[in-house]
Structures are given as C-alpha cells and as structure tokens.
C-alpha cells in the first residue's frame, strides 16, 4: 500500500486507534465483497460498532457470557495437561504415531504483547519448525494476511500443529457434534475461518504444500464435554477465499475516489462522546456506497443503518428477489413495471415481462 493511501486511511479513521480485523471479519468480508462501505471502514480500522451506535442504528449482536464461558472452558479443557487430550485426538484423527509433542506458546514474547513482536516471533518459530521437522504445537500464533491491500493481523485461538513437515490447523469450537452431525451453518463458518488461517499460514511460509488443506475441528461430542475431532476439507473455502481476496476492490482505488476531506473520526470530547455530530457522520457514510443484503444483519455492525438507507429497494427483500428482479432497483419501479405505468429499459425487459405476467395472473385470481 502506498503512503498516500495509508495517510488517507488514517484520516478516514481520525484520531482514534484502529480496530483490528480477525478471521471472522475477514470471512464475513468475503461474503459481501462488493460492499465499498464495509471495505473502506474495515481498511481504515473504523470502530463500526461505535459508529453505528452514534448514528442511531446500534448493532444487535452481542455475545452471551454463557457462550463465552463455555467456549473458553472447552478450549482450556482440550489444551489442559500439555495438550494431552488433543494429542490423543490427533493420533486417532490424523492416524499418527505420536508419543511426545513439543509446544510453543506464542501468546506473548517475554512479556511483550505488541502485534509486531508477536508476529515476528511467530514467523521465526514457524519457519524454523518447517526446517527441522519436529512435532510441535504452536499455541496462539499471530499471523498476517493482506486483505484488499491492507495488512491484517489475525488473532486466532487456533493451534497449528506441525508434524512430518506438514502443518495442520486445529480449530477448537464449542458447538456440539450430535450423532456425528453438527449444525451446518456453524461448521461452514468454522471451515471458512480455518481457511483464513490456512491461507495466512501458507503465505507466511511461502509454501502451499507445507500446510494441509484439511483442518481438524475439535468439538464437544453429543451432550457431553468430551472432545471429538473431525477432519474438514477446506479446499473449496480456500478457492472462494483466494478468489474473493484477489478481486476485493482494491482499497487504493476506492479511497482515491472519496472526497479528500472525508472522515469518520469518532474521537471523543471531554464528555466521552464523539465530538462530531451524528448528522455529520451520517452524511459522511452517504459518500461511500453500500451494498445491503439481509444477510448483513447477522454479519455487519452497520447493517441496520444500511437497511434503513436501502428501504424501498428490492435488495432489502433478499438476494433471490434482487436476482430475479435483475435491473429493477426499487419496489416502486417493480410495481410500475408490473402495472405497465413504467416502460422497461433493455436491461429490465426480462424482469419486466415476468412482473407483468405475475401481476396479471395474481390479479385475475384475487379480483
């Protein structure tokens, strides 16, 4: 990224510290790669949660402390006694003959927890391991990934396991696998997140073959706390992820098109509240185009703001509606095309014919 762009991103964020990406937000980014608003806010490290609250559309996804407690307890249990439980599981799942496994804690470096230091040390240890081939767990390594021209630190709670010259990403999740089946949505989310780690680890090592495209998912079995490990093939997620990352609108270009003075500065005044008014920030948001879809409600802090902004648009009814009504942007337009009061443009012809037929048939039935 050039200096200009970094400077612009700093200005967009204003006088507050940058918000960090994590594997979840990178995974979510690939879900809606066409959204310039999200790309810019994330690249600039703007605190979207605070921004949404300040403009009057607070996000509604919190996490229950019960879920957090359960997740932490399960992870601690799996990692307890020098990873004893995990070694047993990996021996079975990966069909390895293992007796002793070393471990390297990468959570801090001699009391220094700065991102740069941790990443440098993670890099040293991981590349070193690739060279000497010993079996080792790497607990909480800090990885980086280039997302739309922006370097993102990934703060994973993953364990990378190195054995026989191959790294395996091990992801510990606290959702249950019941009768060998788990919630499809949660598995898919875990697989995408793990794919982010696989990709980051591969880029770090500069060697795709050094990291297995099968990740190991460790979850509680049935209704117990007993862990069970499952291999998950993330090749498909990797392809999607790489494709989406490569075509992610280049941040330089996006930022270059914005008004020079634009900023989302949330710096607080003496009263602890952002000094800039909600109206000013709302106006600033309008400068960056969003691409709202109902899925955003579960993924993006800005979703309620964008939904309000998009009201009356066919996109708010769902992706399938938007696709069926290709070229028809608003509900008013759709109604006009249906009753014939609007003339369809070339790109709308197909959707317009369908709308007219539907209106005629349903109209004749309800009349």
């Amino acid at each position, binding site marked *: 990224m050039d200096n200009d762009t970094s400077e612009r991103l700093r200005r967009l964020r204003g006088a507050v510290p940058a918000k960090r990406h994590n594997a979840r937000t990178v995974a979510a980014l690939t879900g809606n790669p066409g959204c310039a608003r999200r790309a810019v806010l994330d690249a600039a490290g703007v605190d979207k949660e605070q921004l949404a609250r300040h403009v009057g559309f607070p996000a509604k996804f919190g996490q*229950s402390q019960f879920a957090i407690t*359960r*997740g932490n307890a399960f992870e601690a249990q799996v990692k307890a006694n020098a990873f004893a439980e995990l070694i047993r599981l990996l021996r079975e799942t990966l069909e390895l003959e293992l007796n002793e496994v070393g471990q390297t804690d990468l959570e801090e470096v001699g009391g220094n927890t700065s991102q740069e230091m941790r990443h440098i040390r993670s890099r040293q240890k991981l590349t070193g391991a690739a060279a000497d081939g010993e079996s080792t767990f790497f607990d909480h390594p800090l990885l980086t990934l280039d997302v739309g021209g922006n370097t993102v630190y990934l703060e994973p709670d993953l364990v990378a396991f190195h054995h026989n010259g191959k790294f395996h990403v091990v992801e510990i999740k606290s959702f249950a696998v019941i*009768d*060998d089946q788990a919630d499809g949505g949660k598995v898919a989310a875990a697989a995408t997140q793990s794919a982010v780690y696989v990709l980051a680890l591969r880029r770090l090592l500069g060697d795709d073959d050094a990291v297995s495209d099968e990740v190991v998912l460790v979850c509680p079995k049935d*209704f*117990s*706390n007993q862990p069970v490990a499952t291999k998950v093939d993330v090749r498909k997620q990797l392809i999607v992820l790489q494709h989406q990352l490569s075509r992610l609108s280049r941040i330089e270009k996006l930022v270059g098109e914005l008004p020079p003075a634009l900023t989302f500065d949330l710096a607080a005044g003496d009263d602890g509240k952002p000094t800039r008014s909600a109206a000013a920030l709302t106006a600033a948001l309008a400068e960056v185009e969003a691409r709202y879809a*109902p899925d955003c409600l579960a993924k993006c802090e800005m979703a309620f703001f964008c939904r309000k902004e998009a009201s009356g648009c066919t996109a708010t009814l769902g992706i399938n509606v938007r696709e069926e009504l290709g070229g028809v942007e608003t509900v008013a337009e759709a109604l006009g095309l249906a009753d014939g009061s609007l003339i369809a443009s070339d790109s709308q012809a197909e959707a317009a014919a369908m709308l007219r037929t539907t209106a005629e*048939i349903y109209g004749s039935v309800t009349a």
Partner: protein
Amino acid sequence: MAGEANAPLAAMIGSDVAHPTLLFVPQPRNRDMRFEFAASLAEVVLDYVRSRTQRSEVLGNDVVFLEAPQLLVPNRAGAAFVRLLGRSTRFRRTTGLYPVPQRVPTLGRWLTYLAERSEHPGSAAMLAMTEALSMHWASGQSALEDANLAAILGWIDPPDGVTGPEAAIAAEDPLVWPPAGPSTDPSFDNEVLAPAIRAYADSAPDSPRRMHALQTLERELRGQMEPTWRLMWRAVDVLRALPPGDTVEQRWTADRKDFSRYHNYLVMDGRPQARRDGAVVAARRLQTLEREQTLYDATRALDDPLVMANFRVTGEAFEGTVVSVERDRRVTGEKGRRITRPLIVVSTGDPMHLAVGAAVRSPARLGQEATIVEIRRLADSTLVTLELAGGMGRRAAPAPGTVPEEKDDITYTSAFPDAFRTPDLPPTELTPWTHGGPPQPYVPTEDDAREVWE
C-alpha cells in the same frame, strides 16, 4: 442456554392461553436439574398426548384416534431444539447410571416422533409459527426477517394506529419483544440471567436467600417468555380466521393415522428411535417424502387459487378458454379396439412452459387424463391441443358434461395428486444382498443409555 448443546433454561407450555405452565431450570448446567425439567415437561406433554387418545374410529383395518397431538413452536430453531431434546431424553433408562422416571424416555420418544413427523409435507404435527404464517402471508421484508415471530406478526396484524413496517421495526427491540427462543437475548443473559443464576448458586439450600433467588429467576424468565406466549396465541387466532382448505381434513387424517400407528408401536414394542436411520429405512423415508411433497403441492393448488397462480406464473399450469372441441373423436388403441379420445384446444395467455407429451389434469375434472399433443404459439397467446382419456362414462359417445365445451374457462396443471410415480421398493425382508440384505432391527445399546449428559 447459550453455548450449550441442548440445556433447557425455561419453557412455557399449555393448551389454554390463560393457563400456561412455566418450567425453568435454576442452574442449566446441572445435569440432575435438566432431568427434573424433562420430567416436569413430560407430565404436561404426556397428559396432552393421552388426552388425544380418548376417542377413535375404524378406518379400513385400523383403529384411528379422532384427535392427534399438535405442537406449535415459535420458529424453526425452536423445532430443532425440540428434536434435540427428544434425542437427549429418549435413550435414558430408569435403572443404572443416572436413572430417570419412565416418563422422561417416553417424552423423548414422543418429541422425536413429532419432530420426524413434522418433516412430512402436509403434516401439522409440529409447526414453526413463523413458517405457518409465511405460507399464508407475504410481508414486505426478507425471509430472514420473517423468521422473527414478532416482526412477521407485526406486518400481518399490527396494533391499532401502527403500520405493518413500523410494527416490524418495533418488534426487533429485544426489550419490548424478547427473542422467541430458543436462544435468549445476550444482554438479558449478561445483565439479568447471569447474576440471578449466581445468586441462586451462592445461596444455601432452603435459605430465604435461595427462595428469593428462585423468585427472581421465575419472574425474569416469565417476563422473557410471556410476550412470545401472547404472540403465539395471536398467531393462532389470525390463522384460525382463514377458511380451511378442502384437503386439510385429508392431511389431518394422515396425521391422525400416523399418530395412532406410533401410539400402538409404543404400547407393543416401545424401543426408541435409532440415532441414525439405516440405509433401507432412509431410502423408504425419502421415497415417501417425495411422494408426499408432490401430493401436498398439488392438493394445495387445488384448494387455493393463489397457490395455483404460482404454478401458472412458473409455467407448470395454465388457464385459458376452450376454443374448439372434437368431442366424438375415436382412435384405434394399442389392443386394436376403437376408443374415445376427444381433442380440445385451449387458448391461454399464461407463460406455459410444458412440452408436447406432458400429462396434465384439470382441477375440476381430476378423473380425466389429459395429454398435450400440440402447442402453437401466437403473438399474444398460446393454443394448446389436449387429448382426453377416461372419465367419460362407459358408452362409445362421451356422457353429457364429461368433455369441456367451447367457451369454457378451464385450468390444466402438471402438478396433480398422482403425478409422482416410482417403482415400489422390495419388502424390507427381501432387501437384496447388494444392499446389505435385510436390515437388523435397531436395538438400543448400553452406550446409548450411559451417554454423559452434562
């Protein structure tokens, strides 16, 4: 409870809007308390199931109960939770490690039964209310937002002085409309529930502080569930105001028959449902579901012109006017006999996507087969020629009224009740060796019962 696979926190259940039963678990992570919850829930559910078996009738060779149980839950996630609760309780035993009262595994079998039955198209054994409403109303929001019971009901039946969209937005505030479960609102968990559970856990048994903690929990949980309880009954009222479709009775009879069958099975055999279906059971089940889906789609279209309208929009059905009739046409059949095969031509403006050779039926004359023999597309309409067979009486000339006449308005559809035909599967005991031979009946193992439950 959030973070747990299937830890019940509280339930509000009943068959009378004025008298719900509130059940709750003061410490959801405690296994014994989960069992106590399941045992209390079992009393309510099993009483209800029993109440459905009081009267019966004879249909063919079977004695069929006049009523069947119906479980209404707020949303799809609620239905999934019921299924899991069934899974976690049906293997429990009354002896050995972690013994439970007999009604707990019986509850598990019934909840599992209802969950499995609800997968059958057209069954009303267990319904997610949001889906029942979505079938009958289109809202102005996305399907994702329709999964919020308060929001979709806001569109359908907003309070006085409020528009549908306004009511739907208001419904998203968890302080006004707490989530309809099974997950609770995270802020409620963090700010109310966690301290209340802690107060309970930190107090001595039977102490005044414990009594107080229990009262707090009950009050707060009731507050979280009562709004949804009221919504459920409002939704029931809204649905009951619709006229029932003609084939609803037929579908409910199927539910009653299946309920009676399972009730008998529990009396005669009573083993719990397997953890997973075997290959043969799965194949049969899939075939049944496909057949039922065809039947359900077709009969709904017969009941409701708006459902038929959708088939017309997608080109699977068409409505038009009969423009010519060759009533006394006779052709030589395969066996060399002369048979009556009238031709009619229907002119339609619908976007018909069926091909020559397609079998169709008219809802008004289901007993008469019709085959498309020619399609001529004109500028603003389509002429469809159909050959008719059957439903014309025994004589050579069709009986009066059995063949459509010129200028009749008529609908033909490719989705009709017996449109789906598959070869019969061999009887289970004759499953060929290529498919593993006849499957062994499922016998629950000691492991199933000993499963850790905490």
